[in-house]
């Protein structure tokens, strides 16, 4: 039941987006943050065969089934996180990058992230003035159960703060910012550890950027309608 084939025809020179029918899982092994359970990951492989050619392309990814929710607590103003319905006490660290000369080897990421897991952390916050972290960083956060709070690139350098006062309206080219943001979301969105996107460091980005980011990060409409059509009682975030 977890191996499905779909036939489709693609016109010459075209680019399409295809939505596969959902795959059903009964009691899947869930992915949990460090300290709450195993970080169970399934291997998802997608390939496309072309008639008269054979396998044309393939892709694979280690995917974790988990549901992450977060809300602002009105009493404390703090953000509360739930993973798979269970409240999580966040023990987090601030992350800028692994190395100032960007010598970001696989081994270095593995060592750094395992170190944070060994310290009993369960979240890393990637500050907006540092990197949108790389897939290797997320891979090891998936493996070791570190939730990731990923910020976009807005800091005191682009929000009117600082001495001298910075440009209050974000980077000069908002379209370029959004192009990079959209591409970064596509690069990282499938990782189980990715818990929260944040517009920038301790503030919201300029209005046009913020509303565009919120739009990019909406749930796929087909997923939403699927959940609404279902009469199975529970919502799906």
């Amino acid at each position, binding site marked *: 039941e977890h191996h499905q084939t779909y036939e489709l025809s693609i016109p*010459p020179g075209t680019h399409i987006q295809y939505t596969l029918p959902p795959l059903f899982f009964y009691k899947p092994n869930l992915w949990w943050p460090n300290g709450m359970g195993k970080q169970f990951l399934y291997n998802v492989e997608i390939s496309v065969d072309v008639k008269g050619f054979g396998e044309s392309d393939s892709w694979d990814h280690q995917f974790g089934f988990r549901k992450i929710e977060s809300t602002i607590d009105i009493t404390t103003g703090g953000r509360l996180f739930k993973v798979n319905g269970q409240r999580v006490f966040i023990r987090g660290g601030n992350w800028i990058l692994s190395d100032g000369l960007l010598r970001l080897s696989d081994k270095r990421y593995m060592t750094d992230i395992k170190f944070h897991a060994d310290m009993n952390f369960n979240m890393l916050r990637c500050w907006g003035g540092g990197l949108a972290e790389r897939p290797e960083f997320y891979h090891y956060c998936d493996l070791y159960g570190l939730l990731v709070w990923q910020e976009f690139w807005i800091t005191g350098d682009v929000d009117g703060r600082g001495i001298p006062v910075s440009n209050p309206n974000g980077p000069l*080219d908002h379209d370029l910012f959004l192009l990079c943001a959209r591409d970064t979301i596509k690069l990282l969105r499938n990782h189980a550890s990715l818990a929260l996107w944040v517009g920038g460091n301790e503030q919201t980005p300029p209005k046009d950027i913020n509303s565009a980011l919120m739009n990019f990060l909406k749930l796929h409409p087909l997923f939403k309608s699927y959940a609404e059509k279902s009469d199975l009682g529970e919502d799906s975030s």
Partner: protein
Amino acid sequence: VATLGKTKLDSGWLAARSTEVEATGVQLTTTMPPSGPSLPWMEAAVPGTVLGTLLKNKLIPDPFYGLENEAILDIADSGREYYTFWFFTTFEYSMAGNQHATLNFRAINYSGEVYLNGHKRILTRGMFLRHSLDVTDILNPDGKNFLAVLVYPPDHPGTIPPEGGQGGDHEIGKDVATQYVEGWDWMTPIRDRNTGIWDEVSITVTGPVRLSDPHLVSSFFDNYKRAYLHTTVDLENSSSWHAECSLIIQVTAGLDGDMCLL
């Protein structure tokens, strides 16, 4: 014939300061390729930054020891040209009839010009942007290919006030790049502002139809007893004919060694 899939281009790179190279990108990738790591060319750190390359060749002191960062020329004083570098490599690939090849840069800081076998492509600005170039028609049929990339630093590298301060003069924030490089309370300024081909470079060979940017989402019902995996995927048919395709998805759970549960 090239096998399908991705090959990383992470070794054999050379680099040189652009002001010290007289040849053009077209010449570097046709008639005048560098012969090896002899001046002005040096072994390059790719993926990596210009400072990483200079440190690898012991041309700067290690900025993370003592006050040695002070001995490295800051881009505000040197000008952007000083940290504008050529990167060069060769690779071999021979393609079969219906195969397609893309040259991929997962991130360059901050902008660049790519030359492959004499053909020029301009890369968009932005530190956090993937670039994927269709190079099917410009790969050399005899298998040897010359690749040169001219990498420019951020447009607004900024200056560091003598008294220091968080984010220098904040000019770096005008670009879509890391901002810590102008120096913060926990970090000295990075002299080249992290200019370079700082993330993976690869060649991907596919058939006529290419997959990109799959999106996986799970939804849960009945207290996590039932779950659905929702998937979308982009497909691009680069051929001149209708492609009849089978799209296959398979989800496995590793059990032990080579065994998996399907």
